[in-house]
């Protein structure tokens, strides 16, 4: 095995290698008559006919074009699965919302570490979310930088779904959206900018998920674990999704002022009948370093969502907390000012 990461030392992979049912050298060669007949049949076919097998990767040298080719159609929409995963995480948060606080040392350490992260002025967050429906899986990795109200959300390169073609920055109340190579900017009027900025920051900043640890009650200490070269204390809590009630979910949603802004000042009000049927457990793992800072929080489980099992594996890694994080506006020459363009056209919209 020529795996570059030393996987040949892995016992499980070594066993799998041994279980290889077909050796390359044991199959017929390209010079075999049957193989040559197959080749000639292919050569006889037209090169110009459409490829109707519906599944082929594009030229891997051209990443941008490649990601526009929708050659994989999962059995479920990845967006459905991502939405389901997000909802499950939200439900996890609400499920533990009203659990009583505890003075247990493990819980106190977790709550303190979460507060440190949420109170940080700046930082870097890498979020990985993987969801699967038992047959297909999709993974998304996003890097988020925040510094005060400024925030930059950038999916990591070479991702599925073409997600890495998009990038969002919010700087001094101006929103920048990058699609492909083109940046577009929107500068909102002052009376809107503050609230909108706050709402966007709240929605985009993953530290808001740490609300969950404010109310966790049964944290257990697992032991020591190294995260990115740093030794941490490892804690764990398991949440039963059947414990969810709609009141706690509404309370959680309304805690977020950003949502209220989106709703035009109205409160979120979800009815019990609106909730999907969710069952199962989610395991929350938390790592805290010697300085009492949370290094990682992860959520994993296979909850049943509307009767079907969906595997959820989310990981949020924090670093550079309170360090100098630079979030720069794109070059003006690369940016199309949407509202400016609108004003220049005398507020006419051609359809």
């Amino acid at each position, binding site marked *: 095995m020529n*795996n570059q*990461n030393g996987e040949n030392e892995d016992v499980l992979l070594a066993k799998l290698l041994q279980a290889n049912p077909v050796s*390359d050298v044991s199959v017929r060669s390209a010079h075999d008559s049957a193989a040559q007949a197959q080749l000639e049949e292919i050569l006889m076919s037209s090169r110009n006919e459409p490829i109707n097998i519906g599944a082929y990767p594009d*030229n891997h040298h051209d990443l941008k074009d490649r990601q526009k080719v929708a050659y994989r159609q999962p059995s479920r929409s990845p967006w459905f699965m991502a939405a389901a995963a997000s909802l499950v995480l939200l439900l996890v948060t609400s499920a533990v919302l009203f659990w009583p606080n505890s003075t247990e040392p493990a819980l106190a350490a977790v709550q303190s570490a979460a507060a440190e992260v949420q109170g940080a002025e700046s930082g870097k967050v890498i979020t990985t979310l993987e969801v699967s429906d038992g047959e297909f899986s999709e993974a998304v990795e996003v890097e988020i930088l925040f510094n005060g109200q400024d925030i930059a959300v950038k999916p990591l390169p070479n991702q599925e779904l073409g997600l890495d073609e998009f990038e969002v920055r919010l700087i001094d109340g101006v929103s920048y959206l990058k699609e492909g190579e083109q940046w577009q900017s929107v500068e909102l009027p002052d009376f809107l900018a503050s609230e909108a900025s706050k709402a966007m920051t709240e929605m985009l900043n993953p530290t808001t998920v740490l609300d969950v640890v404010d109310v966790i009650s049964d944290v257990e200490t697992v032991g020591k674990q190294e995260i990115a070269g740093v030794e941490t204390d490892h804690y764990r809590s398991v949440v039963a999704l059947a414990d969810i009630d709609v009141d706690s979910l509404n309370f959680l949603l309304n805690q977020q002022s950003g949502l209220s802004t989106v709703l035009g000042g109205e409160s979120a009000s979800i009815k019990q009948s609106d909730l999907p049927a969710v069952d199962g457990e989610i395991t929350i793992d938390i790592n805290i370093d010697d300085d009492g800072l949370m290094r990682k929080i992860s959520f994993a489980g296979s909850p049943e969502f509307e009767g079907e099992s969906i595997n959820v594996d989310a990981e949020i890694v924090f670093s550079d907390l309170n360090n100098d994080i630079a979030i720069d506006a794109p070059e003006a020459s690369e940016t199309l000012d949407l509202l400016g363009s609108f004003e220049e056209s005398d507020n006419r919209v051609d359809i």
Partner: protein
Amino acid sequence: MDPQEELRQLFADNYQKILSYALRRCSSPDAADDLVGDVFLTAWRRIDDVRAIENPLPWLYGVAGNVLRNQRRSNVRQLNVKAKMRQNIVSEPSFVDDELDTSELMEALSQLPFDDQEILRLCTWESLSHKEIAVVLECSSNAVGLRIHRAKAKLRNLLKSDKLRPQIDIEEKKAGLS
């Protein structure tokens, strides 16, 4: 170079590896042959793109994997390798059993999601590096490492748990493939 000559060269260089890939995953030699045909037919129709690729083998594996995914959606039975089907065209593999039963390992592998199975097979049976797997699966090398780690964890959990389907199911499945 003449496109026909290019395909002949591509075929000569990669046919055995693609056939092996297909035999490891398909339910019959005929299905494996069909998969090989689909892969090289795609390469023939995209020969202008293929010639720009320095190492086309991972690209060809990527084509094969996507064909398999589509076939699975059409409920074509496959992926469980069966010894009998290989008798006419391959020699029997030499399994090394120490503590872990190979049939149990293969059964656990077959119960993983397709993408988890595929990444473990690519890094072992096809002996691809993380960089090459990244080309096949169209993701970053870092994501490959992450996915292998997770797939291994799922496989270990399956092997440790009682979630493996009862032996009677396995026997029934084998009988169905006869």
